[in-house]
């Protein structure tokens, strides 16, 4: 059983995971309508809210309207990613812990964290991802910035780092369902805290700015990638973002192993 065949097996499995879950989702065609409508409504509302801060040519935390659009765009992109991969999988994790379906996952010769994180792919978040990307492009162009290849690359890298951090936050939260039974509202807490990412982090008072760059790295989810694309990011924040992404991934793994040890009562 070489590493290559294991990777091949994982690759084929993930491909089958996603094709089967797409097939399952397509059984409900009305969903597409509902999802697109909901996405448009949310975006309209967010744009409206943002506009309240820019009434008469004002700025928010030193950001212009167009630059703030880029931040909102990345937030929308990440929200779409949550709907596509994070919410369906990690919502299932919670359900499976409660129903005992987790046992079946643990008995498969596939790493349980990978299974639980990638098992389902929901196509309904894709329109939102597209809208988010569009907003990023629109905001960048309107703000007059002309990002070169480096800026785009760093921007993409920081978005990936943000995605990793977001995934880890969600996963850690879902994994705590092994200890806490009713965690409906835990995902709500995450959602409402992450909603802070719609606005540039400099718009917040210093205490919150500190929180959003350390304990709850919202800044690295949206603001720093936006800065990278607009060519405003400092090397320090880029490095910090990458380090944080790595740490959060390692942390999520460590927590999962702890959670499994608890689930299988390894310690008691």
């Amino acid at each position, binding site marked *: *059983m070489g590493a290559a*065949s294991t990777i091949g*097996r994982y690759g*084929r*499995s993930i*491909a*089958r*995971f996603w094709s*089967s*879950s797409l*097939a*399952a989702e397509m*059984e409900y065609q009305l969903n597409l309508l509902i999802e697109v409508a909901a996405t448009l409504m949310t975006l309209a509302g967010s744009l409206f809210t943002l506009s309240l801060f820019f009434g008469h040519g004002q700025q928010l935390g030193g950001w212009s309207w167009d630059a703030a659009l880029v931040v909102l765009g990345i937030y929308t992109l990440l929200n779409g990613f949550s709907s596509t991969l994070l919410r369906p999988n990690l919502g299932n994790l919670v359900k499976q812990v409660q*129903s*005992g*379906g987790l*046992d*079946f996952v*643990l*008995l*498969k*010769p*596939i790493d349980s964290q990978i299974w639980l994180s990638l098992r389902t792919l929901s196509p309904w978040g894709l329109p939102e991802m597209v809208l988010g990307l569009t907003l990023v492009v629109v905001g960048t162009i309107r703000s007059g910035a002309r990002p070169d290849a480096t800026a785009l690359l760093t921007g993409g890298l920081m978005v990936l780092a943000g995605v990793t951090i977001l995934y880890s936050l969600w996963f850690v939260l879902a994994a705590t369902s092994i200890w806490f039974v009713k965690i409906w509202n835990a995902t709500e807490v995450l959602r409402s805290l992450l909603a802070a990412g719609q606005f540039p982090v400099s718009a917040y008072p210093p205490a919150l700015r500190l929180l959003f760059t350390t304990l709850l790295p919202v800044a690295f989810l949206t603001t720093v990638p936006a800065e990278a694309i607009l060519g405003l990011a400092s090397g320090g924040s880029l490095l910090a973002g990458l380090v944080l992404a790595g740490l959060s991934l390692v942390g999520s793994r460590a927590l999962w192993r702890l959670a499994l040890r608890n689930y*299988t*009562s*390894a310690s*008691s």
Partner: protein
Amino acid sequence: MPIVSARGLSRSFRVSEKDPGLAGTLRHFLKRKVRTVEAVRDLDFTIEPGEMVGFLGPNGAGKTTTLKMLSGLLHPSGGRVEVAGHSPARREAEFLRRITLVMGQKQQLIWDLPPLDSLRVNAAVYGLDDREAARRISELAEMLELGEELHRPVRKLSLGQRMKAELMAALLHRPEVLFLDEPTLGLDVNAQAAMRRFLADYNRRHGATVLLTSHYMADITALCPRVLLIHAGSLFHDGSLEQLTQRLAPRREVRLELADTLPASAFSGYGELESCSGRDVRLLVDRDRLTTVVGRLLADLPVLDLEVRDPPVEDIIGRLFRQGSIEQP
């Protein structure tokens, strides 16, 4: 070389208790009362490859806990266990490929899709190529008598068909050891019989070791030449079912059909009255007094018909569980 071996296997849990009412709620909120429950105590047994073994016991005896420890889902609190040369709790990929766990009324198939889609996922997960998977699917489908059901969404199948499809998904990778936890739970009589036929057939064809828990005696009597009786977490019996009944019930059942109805008190002194409905009476009589008692019954009572047989296994075991202990003769 045994394929399953357990030495001193134990498992205990900490459970919190709460008094009812508002006062109890607040007390529970502030300070939890915790006690230790020993679910499984010091189990010792070995199982050879190809055996079909039944775990018998009332609800809460520790059967499911034992099965979970054997499959690696639960770490033992004490003792050692080895399955297929691996320590189950480590859940190594090699080990997981050689076992399977089927739980009655719990499913792993995707609800909205036909079973075939779930089977394709499992094929990829276990590293089967498409041709091999297709071959095994058709073999299992033939054994389980599933045809076009495989193309219908799982939610549209009956419980019996769903369990069959679950079995297919669980056996696609041809495990050497099958753990079955109450597999016939909730199935109708025909479906239960079909599953038993299939399990016997599978064991014959592939020489798989089967460990089965059930509280349906019919499953055990039909499939398991060897029975492990677990009661309150301990192993009471490890042997055949006949040995168990001999050990527990050195009595035989006498069925009488009488000419007239008689009150229950009329039967005292002959043996234990099991049931008395109208003119049909069932008595339990010690084996060594059997001939004497039968003679007296025929002489004293207006007997139209008399039949002597072994009491149903269900009753024996059921009585044991109700009493909570085995009385040694």
